[in-house]
């Protein structure tokens, strides 16, 4: 069942195109990471999904409700934490949460119950009576997260939830998001790859307004051309070894990266994804009795996928 459907979303600010023809769908229960460099269009896309920013073209819907034609219904199914978590500095934490709870239509005894629930879930108990202006960044993110959780929405949209936090705080927020992901559909945007690898089961890579990939991390790394790359360091006749390596069938290209002090040549062997050329390469070098000190097969990860898709050369 689809939670979010985006069709041909296009956003242009004058002549600058921020998001170009983005289409994707997110099913219920998925945890999706929007990955992309700064300025890629992640936040713009998220703002269009929430209905805050009207698209130049295209439509988006949440739980079947179009965000522009049926905004109130769509917003009732969504909890949104904007980038930089805007909060009212002149309110206390519990006051702010109460205000947001009532805005979302929660009434009666459920208000207090929901506030207690989100404060507990986000670890805000020690700060519940504090003014928001006195909170550290980590706690502000938690308040934003608590606000998004109010009313138990089906969909959580978190824009860079770990932005600007120190490593301890990042770990805590990630734990929190991971635990939330069990009961909600989550969309989060980030440029930290390890975050996506740890939390998400689907990745959408955006660069310069275009969606470059939308798939599970495993599928994405599988078909990568950087997979199967082997790096070798040896001392000896460079041309001979290169020629023999290139003659070997799965090898697509051999690159001489340079010569290190002591006469060690460093080679990068690019081969078919999924093949292991280490054995053959070692055999070739050993057959000439050349000394070899390093042979390593690169295991592809999301960073390779990301770099591959977003490089500027």
């Amino acid at each position, binding site marked *: 069942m689809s939670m979010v459907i985006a069709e041909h979303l296009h956003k242009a600010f004058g002549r600058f195109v921020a998001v170009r023809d983005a289409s994707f769908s997110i099913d219920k229960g998925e945890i999706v990471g929007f990955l992309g460099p700064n300025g890629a269009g992640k936040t713009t896309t998220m703002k269009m999904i929430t209905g805050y920013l009207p698209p130049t073209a295209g439509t988006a819907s949440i739980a079947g409700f179009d965000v522009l034609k049926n905004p109130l*219904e769509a*917003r009732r199914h969504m909890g949104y934490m904007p980038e930089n978590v805007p909060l009212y500095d*002149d309110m206390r934490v519990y006051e702010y949460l109460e205000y947001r709870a009532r*805005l979302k239509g929660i009434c009666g005894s459920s208000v207090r119950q929901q506030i207690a629930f989100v404060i507990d879930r986000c670890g805000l108990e020690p700060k519940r009576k504090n003014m928001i202006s006195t909170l550290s960044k980590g706690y502000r993110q938690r308040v934003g997260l608590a606000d998004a959780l109010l009313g*138990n929405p089906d969909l959580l949209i978190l824009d860079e939830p770990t932005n600007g936090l120190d490593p301890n705080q990042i770990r805590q927020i990630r734990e929190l998001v991971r635990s939330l992901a069990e009961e909600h559909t989550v969309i989060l945007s980030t440029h930290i790859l390890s975050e996506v690898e740890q939390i998400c089961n689907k990745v959408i890579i955006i660069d310069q307004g275009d969606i470059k990939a939308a798939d599970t991390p495993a599928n994405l790394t599988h078909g990568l051309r950087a997979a199967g790359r082997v790096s070798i360091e040896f001392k000896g006749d460079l041309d001979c070894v290169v020629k023999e390596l290139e003659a070997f069938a799965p090898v697509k290209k051999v690159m001489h990266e340079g010569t290190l002090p002591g006469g060690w040549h460093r080679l990068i062997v690019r081969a078919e994804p999924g093949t292991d050329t280490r054995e053959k390469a070692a055999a070739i070098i050993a057959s000439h009795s050349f000394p070899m000190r390093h042979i390593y097969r690169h295991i592809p990860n999301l960073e390779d996928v990301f770099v591959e898709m977003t490089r500027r050369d």
Partner: protein
Amino acid sequence: MDDSTDTVKRTRSYFATLRTIYGKELKAFLGTPFGWVVLACTMGLQGFCLQAVLQIMSKATGEGVMYYMLSNVNFWFYFIFIFPLITMRSLAEEERQGTLEGLLTAPVTTAQIVLGKYFAAYTFYLILWLPMLLYPWMSDLGNMYTSIRYGIDPEGSITYRLADWVGPYCILALSGAFFIALGILCSAMTRSQIIAGILSTCLMITYYFMGRVTELWGEFPAAPAFHYLSITEQISAFSRGLIDTRPVVLYLTLTILTLALTKRVVDYRRWRR
């Protein structure tokens, strides 16, 4: 997580949400030093105006104290600035802080946001005029003191004659409704509170002087239109107890028009991004 297990009590009432926004905005006025500082300053200036009025009243023709307070030149000095002060931060600050995004992604309509802020600002404005209701009581205290201390009973002074109070308060409430709406409109048009304040002040001053055009230019053919709009004439008439329904209609319709325009402006600024 389907609706059958959803145990959160919710309401879809339009007015519940409106009341939430209204309550929060009013608390921002009265629960922080801002509102009380504005109230204190206004009371101070009203008091200053009062001392000038008492001088006039000792030689005057028997109108109520409010008539002299509102026709005093000092009155306009603080009256015009109340409106930008109260309203300039209402929508401009939300946009600048980024919290407008939080409001527009909650299940709240633009109209609810505008009306909630408007009514909170209007309520606060009405509160600013409440301390003046104490003047007759203070005057009685003063008289009592004088009669005890000096044996003379100074009569007259400030009384609770209904005709003296209903009229002025009506015109203050009506014109205030419009001017607050104007201030909220200016706040909606920009991210900067200062520009909102300047815009609002300029519009207020323009409106005031439109009413006084006939004093400069005499009775030219279009003069009745300016007489109709003249706030000084309306205040003068109402303060004497003459409650004319034409300004009532004028201000109510202007207020509704301005609020509708404000709602459109907020939506427009979101859509044109």
